């Protein structure tokens, strides 16, 4: 389906428009913004994970000759600004007033004439801390008598945040009771970090005379930020302009508001000068935007011959010191309940319990579409565990249980309605691309020689494009997106959208979308985004929602313009609009191919003296607000091939095959790039990325020396293929692709490593599968063998 009447050739690989500036080093990132008289901020952070603040002396810092202001929590409290709302309806300290609750928490903000002096002045501030016992382990945080982290909340007596469940408990218990086989696994999805290459930052410019606040920020959701600033700061919303200039990657980490942004804004208001604050890398890793940290117990029930009967999961979710998780308000555990994945599972139930710990807040959707990554990891590990238990080939077991095309639209046992897919074919394409049978033969040979080669499979279903506003909102803002399209007299168009690119190539893809609808060249469509004064309202770019929601809004706006154009064309050709058909990107008189007009001519006419029929005012523009009827469900089948060095535990990813169904592909080149990114992500998460802590709550992963991200050497050359089942409810059948590979790939890597270690009897290793962790598992298995 698609693109009913889309101009031929508009979809397809198209070099990106945004590249022209980036390859010349001419992008404008937040740290590139330099305003006259601009000051520089730096944040003083807590060295302790849990402590009461008993004294704070800023006098020496304030006396530094280049320091213009020092802001403390107390000063903010006087303005009622010491605590800010989080995206989950909790509050978070902007600057600590009473206690610090995680290492790296914001304590004071220094503003100086240059960034070096601001950093120097931090050393001049003394803080007295009375240490409190830190709670790092989520399980211990729930024990009776555990120290209370959030004593700022009146009446609170425990560290428990919420309990949430989905599915039919009774039906699931019954399914388990009647099953031949039940397999359980405890799985930790470790705390991770999106770590975009550009850290977070802001330039706040409060104009004393006009009262206008302009905020250049690394924001994936500029409109949401504007509304939050308005309500939190008590500023009139039309006096706030949020600009997200070029953004160096986001991956969910640039959705929330951070204390540094607010400090810079307050500092700008106080000093009446622009204030820049850009976090350094350790601030980014220690205090900004963690993801995951799900401690899961999963169980799968099946018949002896491999028919899955039920799934259960119970999760302990570590939310850190403030509940700042980013997800639609009514989904405190995100879309975790989509955890039945790609399978026809008759009964399922999951429960999630969230707790506070003395760790950084966050819980952002790190390319995970709101906890779908955790969900997919759980089910894909459980299916592999079942395969081991049954002695079945993991591929055959999956084939047997995958949803079949005729089951769509499919209602899952936890209530999701999957749109479309051909899962068996997608897996078949993956097997064929990989040469699965040959790989298994090679593996057998290698095993004969004592070599450890593993093949891991993961089938996944993502849930993206949030979402229907009746169900989904963020702090009360429904998740619908606007789009405004203007066609200039000469037929060149400007599309303004609310979503914001951080590298996804919206300036190109969205131009192609409009071009396809209007029979224009993508080069003739300019996309405006990332500036709240110039774009319609919308919720931003995350959860793979740009194409599913804003993309759809652009299509609807373009189709409205096309209908207006039809009326004008009718007047031009002197026929009734009803007698026109949209053909080959032009309005053509039915049955008379010789008489047709294209959008440029129509646009000129619409702006001219042409006498237009009633009901049309002239000019050629329109807008739309798109409220998606449902989520979209991109899906895929991934195969990973690894080699494990038994002497060192080092894992090498030799091949990675990814077959994705993201519906209709607007720009396949960009789609492939999105998949590549996610595969590298998955490999990194599976093998090396972890934010870890010692028992005192010191973050052990506060730099790129210890928070390891994959390089070009660890990544194999990725092998991609596709299937296409258009989304039936999206106007052009697109489903979104931004996060699929991050969602689907970690399980494939882990399954591959476990498969490699099968001859040794290893059945599970938690991520990240570092050389040490792999070797320890091998040793433990050998020790067990020795005992037996």
């Amino acid at each position: 389906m698609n693109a009913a009447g889309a101009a031929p050739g508009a979809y397809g690989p198209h070099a990106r428009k945004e590249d022209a500036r980036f390859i010349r080093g001419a992008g404008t990132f937040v740290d590139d913004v330099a305003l006259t008289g601009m000051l520089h901020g730096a944040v003083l952070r807590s060295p302790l994970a849990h402590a009461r603040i008993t004294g704070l002396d800023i006098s020496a810092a304030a006396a530094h000759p280049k320091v213009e202001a020092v802001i403390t929590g107390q000063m903010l409290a006087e303005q009622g600004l010491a605590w800010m709302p989080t995206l989950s309806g909790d509050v978070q300290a902007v600057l600590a007033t009473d206690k610090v609750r995680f290492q790296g928490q914001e304590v004071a903000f220094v503003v100086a004439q240059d960034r070096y002096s601001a950093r120097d002045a931090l050393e001049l501030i003394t803080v007295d801390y009375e240490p409190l016992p830190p709670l790092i382990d989520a399980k211990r945080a729930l024990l009776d008598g555990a120290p209370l982290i959030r004593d700022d909340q009146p009446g609170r007596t425990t560290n428990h945040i919420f309990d949430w469940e989905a599915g039919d408990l009774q039906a699931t218990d019954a399914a388990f009771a009647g099953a031949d086989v039940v397999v359980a696994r405890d799985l930790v999805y470790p705390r991770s970090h999106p770590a975009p290459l550009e850290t977070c930052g802001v330039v706040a410019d409060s104009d004393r005379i006009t009262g206008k606040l302009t905020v250049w920020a690394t924001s994936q959701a500029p409109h949401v930020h504007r509304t939050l600033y308005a309500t939190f700061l008590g500023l009139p919303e039309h006096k706030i302009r949020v600009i997200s200039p070029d953004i160096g990657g986001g991956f969910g980490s640039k959705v929330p508001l951070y204390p540094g942004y607010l400090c810079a804004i307050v500092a700008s208001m106080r000093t009446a000068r622009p204030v820049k604050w850009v976090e350094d890398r350790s601030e980014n890793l220690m205090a900004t935007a963690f993801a995951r940290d799900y401690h899961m117990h999963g169980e799968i029930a099946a018949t002896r011959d491999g028919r899955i009967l039920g799934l259960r999961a119970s999760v302990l979710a570590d939310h850190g010191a403030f509940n700042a998780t980013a997800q639609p308000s009514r989904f405190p555990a995100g879309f975790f309940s989509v955890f039945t994945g790609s399978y026809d599972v008759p009964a399922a139930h999951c429960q999630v319990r969230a707790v506070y710990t003395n760790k950084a807040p966050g819980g952002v959707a790190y390319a995970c579409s709101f906890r779908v990554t955790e969900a997919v990891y759980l089910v894909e590990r459980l299916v592999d565990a079942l395969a081991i238990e049954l002695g079945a080939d993991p591929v055959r077991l999956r084939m047997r249980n995958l949803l079949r095309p005729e089951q769509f639209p499919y209602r899952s046992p936890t209530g999701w309605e999957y749109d479309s897919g051909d899962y068996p074919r997608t897996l078949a394409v993956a097997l064929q691309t990989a040469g699965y049978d040959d790989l298994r033969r090679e593996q057998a040979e290698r095993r004969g020689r004592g070599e450890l080669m593993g093949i891991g499979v993961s089938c996944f279903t993502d849930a993206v494009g949030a979402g229907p506003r009746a169900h989904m909102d963020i702090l009360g803002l429904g998740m619908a997106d606007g789009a405004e399209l203007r066609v200039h007299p000469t037929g060149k168009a400007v599309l303004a959208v609310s979503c914001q690119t951080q590298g996804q190539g919206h300036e190109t893809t969205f131009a192609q979308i409009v071009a396809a609808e209007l029979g224009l060249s993508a080069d003739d469509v300019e996309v405006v985004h990332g500036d709240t004064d110039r774009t319609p309202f919308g919720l931003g770019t995350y959860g793979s929602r740009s194409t599913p929601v804003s993309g759809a809004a652009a299509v609807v706006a373009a189709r409205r313009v096309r209908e207006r154009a039809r009326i004008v064309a009718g007047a031009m050709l002197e026929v009734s609009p009803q007698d026109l058909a949209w053909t080959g990107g032009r309005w053509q008189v039915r049955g008379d191919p010789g008489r047709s007009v294209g959008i440029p001519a129509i646009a000129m006419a619409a702006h001219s003296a042409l006498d237009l029929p009633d009901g049309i005012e002239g000019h050629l523009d329109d807008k739309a607000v798109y409220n998606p009827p449902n989520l979209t469900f991109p899906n895929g089948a991934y195969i990973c091939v690894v080699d494990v060095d038994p002497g060192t535990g080092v894992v090498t990813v030799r091949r990675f095959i990814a077959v994705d169904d993201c519906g209709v592909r607007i720009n396949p080149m960009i789609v492939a790039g999105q998949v590549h990114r996610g595969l590298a992500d998955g490999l990194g998460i599976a093998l090396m990325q972890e934010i870890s802590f010692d028992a005192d709550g010191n973050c052990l992963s506060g730099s790129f020396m210890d928070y390891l991200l994959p390089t070009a050497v660890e990544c194999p050359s990725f092998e991609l293929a596709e299937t296409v089942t258009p989304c039936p409810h999206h106007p052009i059948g697109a489903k979104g692709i931004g996060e699929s590979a991050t969602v689907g790939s970690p399980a494939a890597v882990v399954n591959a490593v476990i498969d490699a270690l099968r001859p040794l009897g290893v059945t599970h290793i938690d991520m990240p599968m570092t050389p040490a962790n792999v070797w320890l598992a091998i040793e433990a298995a050998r020790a067990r063998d020795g005992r037996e």
Partner: protein
Amino acid sequence: MQVPAQVEYERAVSVGHALTLLARYGPRAAVLAGGHSLIPMMKLRLAQPETLIDINALSELRYVEVADGELRVGALARHADLLESAVVGERFAILHDAEQVIADPVVRNWGTVGGSLCQSDPSEDLSAAFAALKATLVITGPDGTRTVPARRFHTGPYETVVAPGELLTEIRVPASPGGGSAYAKVCRRAGDWPLAAAGAMLAVDGGTIVEAGIGLTAVGSRHFCASEAEEHLSGAPATPERLAEAGRIAAQHCRPVSDQRGPASYKRHLAGELTVRALRRALLRARAGER
């Protein structure tokens, strides 16, 4: 981005000038070579020297040459210089093995051999490689030069015998007739510091090991070497069993500590495993007439 604290800067134009400057500014001055250890430490404010004496202009200290069979490396030779030297690749293969896995190509462009040794990081790779090669280091001070065996150069983590006012100027590696050498390292990712690494040098005559050198890093070995394992090899037949036993001995005598990169037990295992791998490769090279 983190930034260094205030510091003064002097650029030396010759070794003599550098020594004069070092004398003038005293113990709160630091030699600045590639800066790829020092500047990151200054950014984190773990190092706060008062004055930097930049020695990058001392082209007289930037060379890699072989004279009388002996390899001589100027302290200011960059990692990349060592890697580019064909004669090093042929005759001191351990150094190419090591340099291929030290940091990353861009860091190697600027970090220096002398800086690496003087940094004396307990996980430094070249310290182990030069320990295996039984190199001699040349130190120049106000009173002239002195030489110190690589194995007596490091006095502790981040400490060496180079006194304030002195410069490391040269590294000398003796020729080892009939020898082969190799380096084996395990890290978590390209560009990562070693979890453990081992360097080996073997000189064989017929089937007998006439000389053995084993260097270890990141596992708490004194002076970056495994002398007990070396003793087990010298004069012994070059058999797989011997090499394996040497690995066991090396593992037994090192003193790794647990950290988030891995537990001590794992690092100890690696010390043994990598020692054996390096020895095997060194032996192959010795036999192939490679060195």
